């Protein structure tokens, strides 16, 4: 068992996928580009989803596209957070020098949490229940990166 196998085949798989985001998320991203947050409300249970969803899984119904839209504020409450040195992307995971604080923020008036970075905060300052606010990117593109993260109100 001391002998180490040194011949390996590096499998290179490159397949570019294009995911159709659908008309609900498309509308959401158009609004993000203008630094506006929108969600939609299930007509049956009243849950407000951000990003909006076509289907409420709990009620198992389609939320009509023509109505049920809700304008949401930039503010919310911190529900949960974690601090990690691990940074992951679609090719590798590595450890970084400065830890990232990642939080779950429930936007005021919505029923679900958004998972984003918490900015300009030291780990010891973070408290569950804190009021948070969106920090927008200067140049928005109509994708998830338009929200740079959340800052303390």
């Amino acid at each position: 068992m001391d002998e180490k196998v040194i011949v390996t085949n590096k499998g290179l798989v490159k397949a570019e996928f294009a995911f159709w985001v659908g008309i609900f998320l498309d509308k959401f991203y158009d609004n993000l580009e203008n630094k506006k947050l929108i969600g939609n409300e299930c007509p049956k249970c009243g849950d407000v989803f951000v990003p909006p969803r076509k289907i409420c899984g709990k009620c198992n119904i389609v939320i009509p596209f023509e109505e049920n839209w809700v304008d949401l504020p930039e503010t919310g409450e911190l529900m949960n957070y974690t601090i990690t040195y691990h940074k992951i992307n679609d090719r590798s995971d590595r450890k970084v020098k400065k830890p990232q604080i990642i939080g779950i923020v429930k936007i005021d008036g919505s029923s679900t949490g958004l998972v984003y970075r918490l900015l300009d905060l030291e780990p010891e300052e973070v408290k569950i229940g804190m009021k948070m606010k969106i920090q927008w990117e200067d140049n928005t593109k109509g994708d998830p990166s338009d929200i740079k993260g959340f800052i303390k109100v």
Partner: protein
Amino acid sequence: MEKVGIVGYNQVKLQSDANYGRYEMIFEAVRGAIDKAGLKKKDITTVISCTNDYYDGRTISNCFTVEVGGGYLADESKVEMDGAHAVLYGLLRILSGNHKLAVVWGGSMPSCFPYHTTRLYETDPTWERPLAYVNDITAAGFQMRAYMEKYGVSKEEVANVAVKNRKNAAKNALALEEAQNQNITVKDVLNSDIYADPVTELMVAQPCDGVAALLLAPEKQARKITDNPVWITGVGWNQETYYLGDRDLSGSKSLELAGKMAYNAAGIKDPRKEIQVAELYEAYAHEELIFTEALKLADRGKAPELNTNIKGDLPINPSGGAIGGNPPCGTGLIRIIEASKQLNGEAGTYQVNGVKKAIASGQIGMCAQNSILYVLEGGN
């Protein structure tokens, strides 16, 4: 439910870098189970393979594992992710009345692929994946914090689970060497590197290389094959919603409902009194506490007070659990094997006394989105 028996099992030694081909490893596990049960290749009527295409680096990866898994000219099908779910598929096949012997094998070799990146492919590609803030590492941190905050459980109490399981793993020859920590302390666990605060590296069930195999047979065949079949007397499974922001991570709704279904099937009314040992797939130390409560073995927030040592009130993961080694797609299957060993009195230095009924759990997804529970009984 008609009686289905576990008539054989085998597991390879778990290793962080096994340094041999995955097909050899699958063969070693499956052939070993067949040999130990005194059976032959021709006795196999159906095979359930359990891997993941991303982990295997190829699509429809079971086309290459059919032969080493005993499926040559037999009927074969594949389950993605946890081996405990593959056992469900095997069980249903036996219950169909069409099969006399099912081989169920599961496992993978994370030494060959970037584990956390492949887990990232579980996330929503249209919203979460581009920024990658939702991943298996951050999900673990959210889950532990949600549990601690809700019930006022301390980091030390969670670290205790890691200490117990790593000490138990030291008694289990097949556990991962890096997890066999006989002299580990709570302080060691808390002082290990931050994984996703409050989770530290030693609270994590380290993904490792390994494969396990299990044999299932209907009652009549099971009695012919072995004097000590282990009977599956109950199974339950359930799934909760996907987005972490929708879920209450302080508990496990999916395992709670899976447990209810399995207990009902097995006629268990008071699990605390009727079950002697539990093997739970805890991907992190805190999950063992959450699952213990979901399965009604302790009240909410009180799992840290339960003595779960091998000689304790209700031993949990005497084998070391998933913290003792976590081969993706094999871990839940190994829990069922370990519970079977306990029922057969084969667990050696980590044997629990007087085991009549045991439970074993499996899980899939971030924060155990999908859970499954088995009730197993020994004796004829």
